[in-house]
């Protein structure tokens, strides 16, 4: 079953060749784990931001979980993202003045949908459960500044996964981790995604992890506007 389906999507920044997108078709099935490969500057982040509804395409159609995002207003897209999508950055994922548990609870406070799934009286229990899965159960009351990079990324994962999202968008979340930690980190996320049938789009310029995924997509292959002359180089 298709969770995400994208058709005839065109996007460009004003006055810039970089990050131009022209994609005929891209789809993600429910629970599917996709490795999206692209060199630096190929428009990976732009693509993720379109999928997250932060940027809106010039034309085309983007349907996620039955909702046509291009027909929504800015505010509606923000609400949609809060309800259905988890986003993990490369690094610096956490609000510095909130504790670990407050960072994880953030989506619950921003989304009615997630709050319905995790009511206030179950919040602590659910957060503890997911923290336990990710091995950060002892860090919940810590300040984010006391955490290592690997721990911070796990907190970010916990925040994106809390409250049953449909789709996780991960923008090179493992690039700051060493190889052993990358695999461990991914397998923890995979487990939770599998249980809850959450789809994952994992973006990276480093192909060493691609064998762990259900499907590998090279952005240059689907993007007709890609700058070909440096394609394939990181």
């Amino acid at each position, binding site marked *: 079953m298709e969770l995400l389906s994208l058709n005839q999507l065109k996007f460009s920044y004003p006055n810039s060749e970089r990050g131009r997108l022209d994609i005929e078709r891209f789809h993600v099935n429910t629970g599917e784990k996709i490795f999206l490969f692209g060199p630096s500057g190929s428009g990976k*982040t732009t693509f993720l931001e379109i999928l997250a509804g932060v940027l809106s395409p010039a034309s085309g159609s983007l349907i996620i979980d039955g909702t046509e995002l291009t027909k929504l207003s800015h505010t509606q897209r*923000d609400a949609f993202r*809060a309800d259905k*999508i988890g986003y993990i950055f*490369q690094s610096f994922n956490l609000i510095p*003045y909130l504790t670990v548990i407050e960072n994880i609870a953030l*989506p619950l*406070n*921003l989304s009615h949908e997630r709050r319905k799934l995790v009511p206030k009286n179950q919040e602590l229990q659910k957060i503890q459960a997911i923290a336990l899965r990710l091995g950060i159960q002892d860090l919940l009351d810590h300040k984010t500044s006391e955490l290592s990079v690997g721990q911070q990324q796990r907190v970010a994962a916990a925040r994106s996964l809390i409250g049953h999202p449909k789709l996780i968008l991960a923008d090179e979340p493992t690039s700051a981790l060493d190889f052993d930690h990358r695999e461990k980190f991914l397998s923890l996320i995979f487990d939770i995604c599998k249980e809850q049938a959450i789809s994952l789009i994992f973006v990276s310029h480093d192909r060493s992890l691609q064998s762990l995924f259900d499907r590998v997509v090279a952005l240059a292959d689907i993007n007709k506007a890609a700058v070909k002359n440096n394609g394939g180089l990181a």
Partner: protein
Amino acid sequence: MIFVTLALKSLWNRKLTAFLTIASVALSLALLLSVERTQRSAQEGFTQSVSQVDLLVGARTGPLNLILYTVFNMGNASNNISWESYHDLKKHPTVAWTIPYSLGDGHRGFRVVATDENFYEHYHFRGDKKIELREGQPALGIWDVVIGSDVEAKLKYKMGDPVVVAHGVTRGEAIQMHDDKPFRVSGILKPTGTAIDQSLYISLYGMEAIHIDWQTGAAPTKDKAIPQSEITKEKLPIHQITAFFLRTQTRIETLQLQRDINNYKDEPLMAIIPGATLSDLWRGLSQIERVLKVISLMVMAVGLASMVSSLLASLNERRREMAILRAVGAPPSKITFLLVFESGLITVLGILLGLAIELSGFFILESWLEEKFGFYSVGAVVTFTDFIYMGATLLVGILVGLIPAIQATRLALKDGLSVRV
């Protein structure tokens, strides 16, 4: 609600920076309000050097000259008023009371004013403030002298000390001294913050007494001098005074009375309305006022600029945080609220602290300022102008929050990424 919590936690996390910003807003506002209060006080102190007086009467001269030599100890009278004319006007049915002034002599750089009991009873300044004696009695006896607070501070006179009046001068060395007829300090005035503090007060009889044996403007030779002990009030006909203050019965008659005095047949006299002339004079000195205004505005500009820069600096550091909030689904409107709420809160706290600093500093120092500088608070504690300044500060604070907020609404997530924390 979550955004109020976020804003408070964020501020608390940066409490030192936030406090410094609040302090910079507070100090510049406190400075601005102080300058404003000083200006108000200077103007009021000046134009209210004498109050509750309807007319000031002297020999015909310019209105400014008349006010300068009666109220500010500056310059000299061109002529005197005869005692007959003074009495005639004093008995005028519309006149409530008068304060006569007889000038011309001095004491070690200070002016000696001869007056009568009405001065102690009716002379007001800054609205309803009255002349008050710190100790002693009004100078009603022939050889009594009451000294102003500055005179006391400078010359260190005590009750009963002898005071020799110099003839004809108020500044520098006198050629002739009334040293055969010294006065005794009978009272010391409380500070008023006006020229009264720099004067000595004797009775009209005292003024006549030191000149009783003088002939054609020169002191008597030893053999012709009349001993102090032989002089009594009965032997002292008062011939003339220099000027007098006047209060009408109902104030409505003021203008009519002024016209009558200006057209007085027996003698060329002039009556002016002191408040109006003082205001004119202040306006003539408006350079001072303008300088104070400019200083106020510069203080405000500097204060707001420092507030803007520190708010912008703290907000710029936080683009990363905005990107995270956008990623978890916070709409731009909420981020705008977050930033504006923060800068608004900082500004409000700064304004409250600034007002508290200014008011408490002022009330703590009030009596000291009064005593040392003749600086008196007038009018409302917080004026309309103060509210305008505070409102303008708040407005700028909110607008400052809007600048990064507008940036944040355009911010794509990767803009946040480019900031390396």
